Structure formats: C-alpha cells, structure tokens
C-alpha cells in the first residue's frame, strides 16, 4: 500500500501551464491558474478522452501551487485511498482518472469525505474521461458533490496546434523537427498528442543513443522496432 504513494509525479514531471497549448481551452486554463484566487470554490472537474492533456493540466496545477508556496499532491487511483485521510494540510489535491476509481466503495467514500472536509482554502481538481452524467457512481452522494465542481470538457486540439505543441516540446529537449518529419508523424501515426509525445520521447532517447538527427528514415527505423 505504501509503495503506491511514492509516485513523485509533481517532482518528476515537467508538466507546466507554460507548456500547455490551450487553443479552445483558454477559459479552463485561466480558471486553473487562478484557483486559489477565488474564481471558483471547492474546485474543478475536467473531462475528455485520453490524450487531451488532463494529466498535464493536473500536474501543472500542482507545480503552480507549489511555486506559490502552497502544498499540493497529485494522485491516481493506483495510490491508496487511505492517502486522502492525510490531506488536511494540503492546499490542492489533484485526482486523475476518476473513471478508474469509481466502483471502489473505499475510494468513493474517501473522496466523499475529502470533499466534505475541504476547508475554504483547499481545492480539488479531478479529471475523468467522460461527463459526470455518463459515469456510474456507487455513491450518489459523491456524484452530487463532484457535480458541484465547475465542470469543463477539454476541447481537442487541431492538428496545427498539436504540431506546435510537439515542436515546442522538441525544442525544449534540444531537438528539431522538420516539416517533413512532422508530416510523416501526423500522417502515418495516431495523431493524438499523448501518442505523439510518447513517440517524441522514444525518438529523443534513440537519437541520443544513435547520435543521429531526427530524419524520416531514422524515425522509420526507430518506430519499426
């Protein structure tokens, strides 16, 4: 149980608001960046399919809070629900993948209690893949509480915005992606940003190992493995 707590996500992840390409999600980004300034109370529920940037936003919230001198923790259902018992001193609790914890009565009760005990200065940001109306809660009490959070669907990025995000991430890693490389990646592979970022991660390591620039033939050889 205790091993599952050592996720180290906020420390280990590089997700920051500055790296998030908002496109149609400006309002959500604004709300999350000003959580502790009273725009909303209790918190936010954001939802959308895999690969739209939910984890990025949740971890960015944690970093942002920590940079402001607050305490924050990022949790997934892989952690123990018992963690939620020790949140009285945490200013921001981010819970990713709500879908995966529903169905566990222990988790639902823990989350229900966390909500009930939120002090005015405490917030929760919860993410899920679907709208709350499409999700099966064991505890109706929890459903209605999550419904009181401000809900935002994450709008998918256009291909153009995804390309920008990929290029920006590549530049942060000191890599250059040419137009032909981008064309190849976006024509021949899944175009979701999470998949493209995963590919970039692989290519980053492979180019370091092979001491090669990112060219289409090189990428083909790496991704063929």
């Amino acid at each position, binding site marked *: 149980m205790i091993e599952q707590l*050592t996720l180290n996500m906020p420390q280990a992840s590089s997700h920051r608001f500055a790296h998030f390409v908002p496109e149609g999600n400006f309002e959500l980004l604004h709300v999350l960046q000003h959580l502790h300034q009273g725009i909303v109370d209790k918190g936010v529920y954001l939802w959308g399919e895999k690969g739209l940037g939910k984890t990025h936003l949740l971890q960015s919230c944690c970093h942002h809070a920590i940079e402001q001198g607050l305490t924050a923790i990022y949790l997934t259902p892989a952690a123990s629900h018992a*963690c939620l018992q020790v949140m009285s001193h945490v200013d921001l609790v981010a819970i990713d993948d709500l879908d995966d914890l529903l169905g566990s009565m222990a988790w639902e009760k823990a989350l229900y209690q966390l909500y009930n005990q939120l002090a005015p200065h405490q917030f929760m940001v919860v993410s899920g893949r679907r709208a709350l109306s499409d999700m099966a809660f064991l505890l109706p*009490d929890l459903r209605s509480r999550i419904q009181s959070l401000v809900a935002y669907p994450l709008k998918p990025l256009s291909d153009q915005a995804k390309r920008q995000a990929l290029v920006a991430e590549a530049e942060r890693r000191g890599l250059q992606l040419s137009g032909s490389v981008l064309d190849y990646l976006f024509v021949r*592979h899944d175009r979701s940003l999470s998949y493209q970022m995963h590919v970039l991660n692989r290519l980053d390591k492979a180019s370091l190992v092979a001491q090669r620039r990112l060219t289409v033939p090189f990428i083909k050889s790496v991704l063929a493995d």
Partner: protein
Amino acid sequence: MTDLAITLTDTGSLLQRLRSDFHAAMETLTGDDFTLYITPLQFQLQGKNLAILAPNDFVYDCLKEKYTDAIEAHFRSLIASGKIASYQFGIGSVTEETPIPQTYHAATNSSSLRSQTTIKDDPIDSRVNPLFNFQTFVAGKSNQLARAAAEQVSQNPGAYNPLLIYGGVGLGKTHLMHAVGNALIEQNPNARVLYQSSEGFVGQMVKAIQMNAIDAFKTRYRSLSALLIDDIQFFAGKERSQEEFFHTFNILFDSGQQIILTCDRYPKEIQGLEERLKSRFGWGLAMGVEPPDLETRVAILMSKAEQAEVYLPHDVAFFIAKHVHSNVRELEGALKRLIANAHFTGGELNIAFAKESLKDLIAVYAKLVSIDNIQATVAEYYKIKVSDLLSKRRSRIITRPRQMAMLLAKQLTSQSLPDIGRAFGGRDHTTVLHAVRLMLDLSTKDTIIKEDYDTLMRILSA
C-alpha cells in the same frame, strides 16, 4: 512541569533546531513520503523530554512501518549527545492542555500519549458550518415542511426528537441540519452541539477502540446537548457502531437532548440497519425533502448568485433551472461555470451567453466521434449502405460519400491516415490523403458539397 521547563524562547529555538535536524536526517525520503508523513509531524518539548506527534493513525502507522529504524537511530543519537533525555512517538497535536508526562522513556509504546491527545473532552468543536443557516436556505414546496420542522426544533429543542430529514442527494438535508446547529449555538454559545457524519462517528469509534479510549469516546458523545448525525445510511452493516450509537441515542434521548439525523431514504428501507434503531428513528418526526420544482430552482440560483455577489437576470436563472434539474449541487455547479465564464470573458449574463457557456454541460455533446459512427451517419445521409462505403465500387454516387466520410474521420477523430484507410475497406493512406484534399477543395467550389459537409458536421458534433 515548572521544574523542568526552560524559557519559552529557548524552548522555541531548541524545538526549531530539533525539527530542522530531524528534517535534514529524513530528507532522503522521496518527495511524497516527506510531504505526507514528515511535514505534518509536530514536536513538543518539556524539559528535555521530546514528543513527536503524528496528526493521525495513518501517518503514525506508515512511519512506524517504514521508517522506525531511521527515526529511532536519529533520536537515540540525540539522547547519546545529551540534547534530549528521552523521546516519545505518538498521535495527537500540540496543545497547552496536554503537557507531556515527565515519566517518558525512549520507547515506542505510546498508549499513554494517545489516550491523552486524541480525544479531548472539553471544549468541543461543533463542526457546524456557519455558512449553512436558515437565511441562506431557499424554501419551496419540496422542502418547506422540513424547513418548518427544523425551525421549530431550533427554537424549541426537543419539540421533535429525533428529527429525521430524509431525501435524495443534494436536496438540502445537510444544510437544514447545520442551520439548526447554528441556531442552537447562537441561542446558547456554551451549548455542546456536535455535527458528525456517520462515517466520522464510525471512524472515531474504531480509533477509540484501537487506542483503548472507548470510555472517553462514550463520555464525549453522551455529554452533548445536541447531536447531529449526517447520512445515517452509512451505519448499515456496521453492527458494533450501531450498538454504540444505539446506547448514545438512548442516553441523549432519555436526558431530553436533541438528536437530528439525515438519511438518503426513509430509514425503514435501509438494509443492514438494526430494527431497534429503525424503530427509534421513527419516535420523533421524519420529514422528507423532494427535488426542488422549477420555481424553487430559480429561487435557489438567485440566492446563490446573490451570495456570490453576482447579478443574475431572472430569465437566465430560469434557463439554467429548466435544463439542470437533478439536484441543487449540480445547479450550483452550472451557476459557478457561468460565473467563471463571465469572469473570464467579461461577457454580460444573458440567455445567449448562458446557452453558449453551458452548452457542453447541458447537451453533453463532447463525446469523441468514432469512424463507425461517421460511416453510419454518412451512409444514412446519402441513402447508401455502409458496406458500399467500404466496397471497391468506384461510381461517383459511392465515391463522393466515401471521400466525405474520410474527410470527417480525419477531422473528427485522432486516428492515423493508415488507420482511417484500413477502416474504409483496407485502403492506402494516400487514398485518404487524396480524399481529404479533394473534398476540402470541392467544398470551397461546390455549394452542394459544402452544404453536405456542414450538415454532416453539425449532426456528428451535436
């Protein structure tokens, strides 16, 4: 205490040093462990006897399980160097009322500390939320009887005992319960009122049993002048807790103290609740709350907007209330979203603005479209079969819809072009690319194709 006490300033700086030394010694822990377990620890020093207090069982158990060796090694070295005489690791919080006994040993058994610091008899923290009062409770047909009963109880405790408020989630049961609690405290600031969820009651009882402090637990609950227990349905199946609650109930009831309970259904319908409890819950008055009707929902929205100091036009409140009707919390969520949107865009709160802001909340349209869905919709639109779209046929009557479906699949899904090609009868990705370019081009020149495209896009996005 005075014999061993050193001056406050000295104690403060010494404590600070002990704390920072301890943090330095434990900094090898991973970030989460340090934040979760080490940061919340409190230090208390009396003379040279140090107590390290964990805020709850969870932190205490985790530390003992995982870091006993490291903690012991650190504090034993402090004893060896003469900085402290002894240390004690327990559960509790630093308070002036809980001095450390002077007979501590450098040991891990902390039962004496536990019993002194975790359950306090006096004064009582009522846990009543001051924001939930009768002024902020919006009454309508659905809840006016429950409100009247609650007001009666607040003015004349014992009038209905117990008062049981039952109904679905998010309908104001907890609000009414807190409102009574606030009114009782307002009338008598010394009243021993306690709000507790049934889960909280069970949790405290379990801890009390573990710490051998059940007597303190009983004393605390049985000395109340009003006990407010929320969501009693969670007592179901917990026999030991039910038994303890049964005795607490009897003692409070017999001595004329007020008991208020809430439940998500009529208690007789709860499976796993003892009959003797069910019958006692029926001794007083049971009032149901129903989902609010349209007018009440409008009134609730107007009240919430007023509390948030936002001007909400009546027609906008009506629009939201018409579309969101499951419970008050969802209504509140919709209003908050609207206010956040207005805050962000600086837009005026009117019907058009509300429609735009809440369209995703109301329609829940933002489900990603699948290729299968696109094929079925396009086939139906052009009155052809899905199998035609996937076939090898090349007549214009089939190829245009196929190319349209490929364009929509490219725009509305995140699938790769080879995947899209495969979904259309195993075609090559270059065919998909050609279709996308061709249809984008045609849609700028051919009004019929443009109209088809717009209509299909609307159907699939709606």
